[in-house]
Each structure stands twice: as C-alpha cells, then as structure tokens.
C-alpha cells in the first residue's frame, strides 16, 4: 500500500479503479477511516497537541535521532502495522529494510506490515536519501522505536490483566502473559497509546541471535506491485485540472533568453500558454535553470509546443567551456605540485631515491546519473500554500528550495514523496520541484513539470570531470617506497558558492585522503579547476575517479615490480591496522561517523580482497585472450573487492564472462537486497567505465539521449556475477554506493591482464565508433 502523508487527495489512479490497492489516499482521510481505538499517536504528534503530548519525551535523542515510536509506527485496531518510511524508495528497497528493522524489535507479524511514505519534514531528522546512510544512520534508532512500541503494548496488556509487565512478551503481533493470557496488538493499541514512552535504558533490544527479520533474505515490499505496473512514480502523478509543462532551458548554465517567438507554440493544439522563468543567478544551487515553460493539456502537446518555440539564447559566462582543451588544462595542473592535503614521510626525496619510478595519468569525464525516470514534479497552489508531489531523494531540501524560490515560509510548502524511478544522486537536487512550483503559481492550476530524456542528459548536475597523476617509487625488491597522488577536478561546492575551484576536503575524503596503503612515503596533493556546468554527486561521487586511479596504479606498480596484482595489492594494503588520515594532516570526517565505531580497518579490506580472489579462482589457468583484474576500495564505511574476467578476441572485441564481488558492510539488514545492490552498483560502474562520457562544446552538453549518452544493455553486461556478503557483527556500513568504485579499475586491470593494453582514460569505448579495443591482435 502506498499513501502520501499530506492533506491533498489525489484522484483515483488506474489501480484504484481496478480495485488493486489504496493509492494516493491522503493520510488524513486514511486516519479518518481508521476504526475507533486505533493507535494513531503519530497523527496527534503531527498536530502538536492532544494525544501526542502523552507520548512526548523519552526517546527524542537516541543514537541516530528521534526514536519516538509514533513517528514511525501506527497500529490499527485490526492489527495492521502501519510504518512510516522517512527515506525515499528508489530501488535500494529502503521500504523493506526500514520495515525489517522496526518490525523485528516490535515483533510485528510481517504479513500485517504496510508502509506510508513520509512527507518532507524536519521532525524525521535527516531524510536526504543519499550517502548510503539509510540503514547505518537509522538502524539503532528504528530498533529502539520498535522495541519501545513493543514495551508499551506489553505494559498495556499487563495493566489490563493486572500482572507484572515483565511477565508479558510481545511476539508476532500478540502479547502473551501468565496463565496463557493473549491479546493481539490491535486490541491493545488504544491502551498502549496511553502508556508513557519508556526511556532508552528501559528498552530491551533483542540479541542478534533472536533477530527474525534483520539479516534475512526478506522479499521486497515493492516488487509485487511493480510486476503489475502499479505504484506511483513522480512522473505518474495526476491531479484534477492538471496541466503539463515541458521547459526550454538555456543550453549553457547561466545563459538566458535573448529573443523569444512563441507564435507557433501557441498554435499547437493543446498548448495553453508559456511562462518565462527567472534567469538563473549564481550560485546555481537548487534553483530553477530558467528558460521558457510550455504549458499544455498533456505531455505530448507540451513537447510539440516546445519543439515549435523559437528562442535565441544569450550564452552567458560559460560559453567557452570545451571538454577537450579543459581536460588538457587539468592534466597540466596535475603535472605541477599542488596543495598538500595529506603527507607522510618525504615523498619527493623517496621518489628521487627509488630504484624504479612509475608515473601514470588518469582521466575520467563528466557523467550523468540518468535514472530511467527523468526528473518530474507536480505542484498545486491553494490559498498561498503549495503542495508538491515529486520523486525526490531529499524532500526537506526540496521544501527549503521551493520556499526560497517562491518567497513563502517552509511551513507553507508540503513535499509528498513518490516512488523514485532510480535516482543515483540526481534527485537529491530539487531544481525540478522549484520549476513546478513556479509554473503552477503562474498558471493558478496544478502543473506537472516533466523532464524529457534530452533535458535530463543536457541539464544535469554532472559528476565532476577529473585528471589525476600518480607517481610511485619502487626499491630494488619491488616494494613501493613512495606514492604520490595528485587530483584535479571542479568541486561540487562550486554549485553552491560561485567561483569555488579548489577540491574540497569533503570530496578528497572520498577515496583520496583515506588511502589505506602501507607505504613509508605518501602524499596527496590537489589542484584547482573551475566549474562551467552544475557539478553534483553521482553514486559514490569522487570515489569513482579516486578508486579508478589508485587501484589502476596499484596494478601498474605490481606489473613494474613483476608481481601478481592481487598479491601486490595485499602488500600495499599491508598489515592489519587502523589508519587515521588526520594524523598525517588530512581533514577527514569518516563519512560523518566516529572512527572508533568505523575505523579504516586494513584487515577488513585485505579480507575482501582474499574472498573475491578466492571466489574468482584467482591464479587459475586462463584461455588466450582472457584476463582477471582485481580492485578493492573502502567507501561509505564498507569494504568491497571485485574481480572482473574479460575475454578479448583478435579484433579487440570485449566480453565480460564473470564478475565476483565480496562486500563487508558490517551488519546487513537484507541479504538479498545487499546482493542485488552489489550487482547493480558494480554494473553501474562498469557501464560508466565502458561508455560513459558527457562532454561540453561552447558550454553546451553535446549528448542528448541514449544513442549518444550510452548505458550498458543486457548483451553488454557481465554474463554472470557472484556476490559474497562477509558475515560481520560490526555496525552497519553503506551498501548502495560502495560496490561502484572498484568496478572500473577491476575491469581495466582485467583488460591489461588479457591484452597488455592499459586504459587510463575513460570511457573505454567511444560512442559512435566500433567497440574495439585498440590492440594489435593477441600475444
């Protein structure tokens, strides 16, 4: 069941008409329909009075935030368990994992669990569903909420029965007491609502051995609906009297309309009117890009209307951005000494004294997140307040951005979160929600802004382009004595503060400052690069290019030393120990979590290397043209090692017969979906490495749709992939992003092993040319 939480009522959707499921039913209507005696303290809490007050206090500030049960749990008199998911569902199965955590401690009957998607509101704490942190930041908090709710049910039963609460135990939606007494959660709901919330110290969390749902392979709560075409994504929202807008945006960021002729547009049947959007002023942040919205009765009329629009654009300050010369300029920067961001020993002296010196330069282009559902948002104004429905990762950021752009208080903005048809970082930038709010206000009617694929590819928040130079020194035995890493890229903060061009510590910590290698002399330097497009985060962010460079270079050092890639990588990782980059001058925040809980643990990194190698049969005899490559990387507090096998024929044609990944994400909630994320995250990385390149010419993006912005298809995907989840009692790490960084270097290391061709510049294949590696036959 999918219900939006806010007041607005959407029209019956197709599935409701067919009687499948409750969709888009408003929270208030839903609650009004709940039978008397239901435990709906969540509602009262939201209203800020009455029932809610009885339940306030207690658990406002447990590890991870507010664990007040009513924030997440409502129990109906018929025993249904309604859980509010405050994180956005975008395919990572967060509905399922959040529900598993709560339901386990609550001892809910899984078959009675239903999900309500939360609106964007600070009461939930952080809702920005990125950074691979839904489980790691909410695990304890949601366990406490579930256990506290169970304790309240047990106390309510004890009161009714006149027995000691310690003798009452909630199990599978029923409280059992002395003498065979039993009462269902539904029957106890009203009485439980009157119980005070226990303190954290009074809440007994289950022992790991007694977990019923956590750590298990629980099927997805969304998939049964997906296979029937049900579920509401952002682009699917329909309101009564709604219009659809498609927007012509300036080709260059900070460009503007010079001349506009809308005569042909307004003649297109179905087009209602056009709306000029304000010209974007720096910084870009989450503001609308500007341009001209074509508003029509339906999507096709809006698209046709935009096609008929005659606009001449003022190119603005980014008109000189050309990817080719920019790449050369960045690489020149990388050849000079930069700002020291971490320093161990004396790398330059050690390089000078080395028996052998290896240098390599790596380049990774801009990428687009390209979720299959492009950005889409619907807005409706009523009495000066705006309600939005959108596929957003960060509904609170959307709320702030809409409030700022429209000059209204945040309390007058409601953001309903739909399902997200993929996101990968794009949908944590709510510029498209701002557009919908602005256009709907101008029309005085509900408006859905739909981005076409061309819009998504040409007007993104791009993964940053990067140039890196690595230098290594080997001693007479081939041991690495010096490791110099220089990284140059336009930083993400430039999107939020115009003119920033220095790589931020927040990006360097993603795979660069946290380099775990045990070499005596190690230095990280950064070089500046200005941004000419909106730079944003994409699944695993700077880890992509940092892991590509470091893990490729590790294999290059191994080759120079005449050693096996995997053995040499283990030697670089070194003895089991905890690495703290702060001791070597680095600004480092460990993904916002304490080093004590989540150390950089080289034993765990080495372990996944051994596991992946063992799964792949590392060292086995390979046919001619085949090769294995390995890469390992810690990101988002988890450890992943990946082995890729490639097969290359005489003509340079590439196939990927197998991939093996080992992931150590600490405690995992759902083994099936961690495996699926490891598969998907790895293939996402392989797709980008094989084909991904967004380029600019005269400041405008050259790609437009899937022929020229190419994504991996099934015939290009690995034929098979095996995943091993390392069993661990460590606290949960991230899962959605960590599989991506090692994918590209494992692939290029495999290509080197198979052919001797070292790929240092991504993507591997140039779109529009034949997919052939430039090899001269097979040796």
């Amino acid at each position: 069941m999918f219900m939006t939480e806010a007041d607005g009522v959407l029209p019956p959707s197709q599935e409701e008409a067919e009687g499948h499921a409750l969709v888009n039913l408003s929270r208030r209507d839903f609650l009004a329909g709940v039978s008397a005696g239901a435990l709906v303290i969540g509602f009262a809490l939201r209203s800020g009075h009455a029932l809610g007050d009885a339940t306030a206090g207690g658990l406002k500030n447990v590890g991870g935030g507010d664990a007040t049960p009513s924030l997440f749990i409502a129990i109906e008199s018929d025993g249904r368990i309604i859980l509010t998911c405050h994180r956005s569902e975008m395919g990572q199965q967060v509905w399922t994992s959040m529900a598993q955590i709560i339901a386990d401690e609550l001892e809910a009957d899984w078959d009675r669990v239903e999900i309500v998607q939360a609106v964007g509101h600070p009461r939930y704490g952080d809702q920005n569903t990125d950074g691979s942190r839904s489980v790691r930041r909410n695990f304890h908090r949601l366990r406490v909420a579930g256990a506290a709710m169970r304790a309240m049910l047990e106390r309510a039963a004890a009161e009714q029965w006149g027995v000691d609460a310690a003798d009452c135990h909630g199990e599978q939606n029923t409280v059992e007491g002395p003498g065979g007494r039993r009462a269902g959660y539904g029957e106890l709901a009203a009485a439980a609502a009157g119980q005070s919330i226990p303190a954290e110290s009074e809440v007994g969390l289950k022992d790991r051995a007694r977990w019923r749902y956590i750590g298990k392979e629980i099927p997805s709560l969304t998939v049964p609906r997906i296979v029937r075409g049900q579920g509401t994504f952002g682009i699917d929202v329909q309101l009564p009297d709604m219009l659809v807008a498609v927007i012509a945006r300036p080709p260059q960021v900070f460009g503007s309309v010079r001349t506009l002729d809308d005569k042909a547009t307004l003649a297109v049947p179905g087009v209602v009117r056009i709306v000029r959007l304000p010209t974007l002023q720096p910084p870009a942040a989450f503001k609308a890009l500007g341009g001209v919205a074509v508003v029509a009765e339906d999507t096709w009329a809006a698209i046709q209307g935009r096609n008929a629009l005659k606009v001449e654009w003022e190119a603005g300050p980014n008109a000189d951005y050309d990817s080719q010369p920019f790449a050369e300029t960045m690489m020149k920067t990388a050849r000079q000494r930069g700002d020291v961001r971490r320093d161990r020993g004396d790398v330059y002296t050690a390089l000078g004294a080395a028996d052998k010196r290896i240098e390599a330069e790596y380049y990774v282009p801009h990428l687009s997140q390209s979720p299959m559902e492009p950005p889409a948002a619907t807005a409706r104004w009523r009495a000066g307040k705006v309600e939005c429905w959108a596929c957003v990762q960060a509904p609170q950021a959307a709320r702030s951005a809409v409030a700022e752009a429209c000059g209204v208080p945040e309390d007058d903005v409601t953001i309903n979160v739909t399902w997200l048809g993929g996101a990968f970082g794009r949908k944590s930038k709510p510029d498209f929600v701002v557009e919908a709010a602005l256009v709907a206000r101008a029309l005085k009617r509900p408006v859905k802004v739909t981005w076409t694929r061309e819009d998504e590819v040409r007007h993104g928040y791009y993964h940053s382009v990067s140039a890196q130079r690595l230098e290594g020194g080997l001693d007479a035995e081939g041991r690495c004595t010096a490791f110099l890493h220089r990284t140059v890229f336009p930083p993400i903060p430039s999107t939020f503060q115009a003119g920033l061009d220095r790589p931020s510590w927040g990006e360097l910590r993603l795979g660069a400052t946290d380099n775990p290698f045990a070499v005596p002399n190690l230095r990280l330097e950064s070089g500046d690069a200005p941004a000419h497009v909106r730079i944003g985060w994409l699944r695993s962010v700077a880890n992509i290019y940092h892991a590509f460079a470091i893990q490729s270079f590790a294999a290059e050092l191994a080759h120079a030393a005449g050693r096996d890639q995997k053995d040499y990588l283990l030697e670089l990782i070194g003895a089991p120990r905890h690495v703290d980059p702060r001791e070597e001058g680095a600004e480092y925040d460990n993904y916002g979590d304490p080093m004590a809980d989540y150390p950089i643990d080289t034993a765990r990194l080495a372990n996944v290397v051994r596991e992946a190698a063992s799964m792949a049969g590392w060292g086995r005899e390979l046919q001619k043209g085949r090769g294995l490559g390995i890469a390992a990387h810690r990101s988002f507090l988890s450890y992943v090692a990946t082995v890729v096998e490639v097969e290359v024929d005489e003509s340079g044609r590439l196939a990927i017969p197998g991939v093996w990944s080992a992931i150590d994400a600490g405690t995992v909630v759902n083994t099936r979906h961690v495996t699926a994320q490891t598969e998907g995250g790895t293939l996402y990385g392989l797709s980008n490495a094989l084909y991904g390149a967004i380029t600019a010419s005269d400041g405008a993006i050259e790609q437009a749709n899937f022929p020229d912005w190419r994504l991996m298809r099934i015939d290009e995907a690995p034929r098979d992939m095996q995943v091993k989840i390392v069993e661990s009692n460590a606290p949960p790490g991230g899962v959605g992003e960590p599989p991506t960084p090692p994918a590209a270097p494992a692939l290029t290391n495999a290509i080197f092993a198979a052919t001797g061709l070292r790929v240092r510049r991504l993507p591997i294949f140039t779109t529009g040319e034949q997919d052939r590696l430039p090899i001269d036959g097979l040796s």
Partner: protein
Amino acid sequence: MAIKLTVNGARHELEVEEGTPLLWVLRDRLGMIGTKYGCGIAQCGACTVHIDGQPKRSCTTPVESVGEAEITTIEGVRGQVADAVRTAWQDVDVPQCGYCQSGQIMSAISLLQSTPDPGDADIDQGMSGNICRCATYIRIRHAIKNAAKAMKS
C-alpha cells in the same frame, strides 16, 4: 481526430491529435501509468506494450496506426507466460527501482512466447532493447531462465 482503441480488452473512443504517440494516450488520456516514458525515441524499451501480441515501443507508435489491433499493457497482460514471468521476477526480486520493469516484463513475455526455452544469445537478442539503469541484468537473465523452466513443468 476520433479514434477507437482496444486496451486490455476494453474499448475506448477518444479525440486525439494525429501523430500522438500511443504512450501519451495511454498515460495522459487513459490514466494507464504502468507503461513508462524513458527516452521518447524507441531506445530504452520502458514504454513497451504488446500490439496484437507483438512487442512495440509505444513512444514512437502513432496512436492512429494501431487501428483495430489489440493493445495489451503491463496492467492487463495475462496468461501462462505472463504468470511465469511475474512469478520468476518476484522469486528473485528482479526489480530495484522498478521504473523500467514494465517494459522488461513485456519484452520477456514476448521472448518466452516466441522462444520458450531461450539460451543466453536469445536473451541478449530479445532483451537488449530494454535499458535498466539499476542494471538488474544478472537477475533478469536468471528470472527468464527460471520462468522457462517453470513453463516446461
């Protein structure tokens, strides 16, 4: 222009602009949102429907070209093959975000209808028109093979 459409067995009479892609008639006019927009140029397969049992990209199919043919969408596709595919898809949780999966499932049903026991090359051929950015390809391949096995028994 006035047209008549048969979608999942139901007759619809409506007024449309000539050349409107079937996709937008399904979604915006009939409210059948299970069929998805992904690219608009028949490159990604998210909009796949069956027209007289054959897979078609509805984003580039002018609605008037359908004529009297039967349109089947993800909401209405039924039968032994559809059941086997849906079951196989659920058994291993193929979908992640699910957005492309309407199209994936419609293509998989077509593949299994014409090739009940597909090998890897058949799967490549039958499914390479459908892009999945979550990259669920490993599970799509397994699920199609599982569905084929289930259909045999």
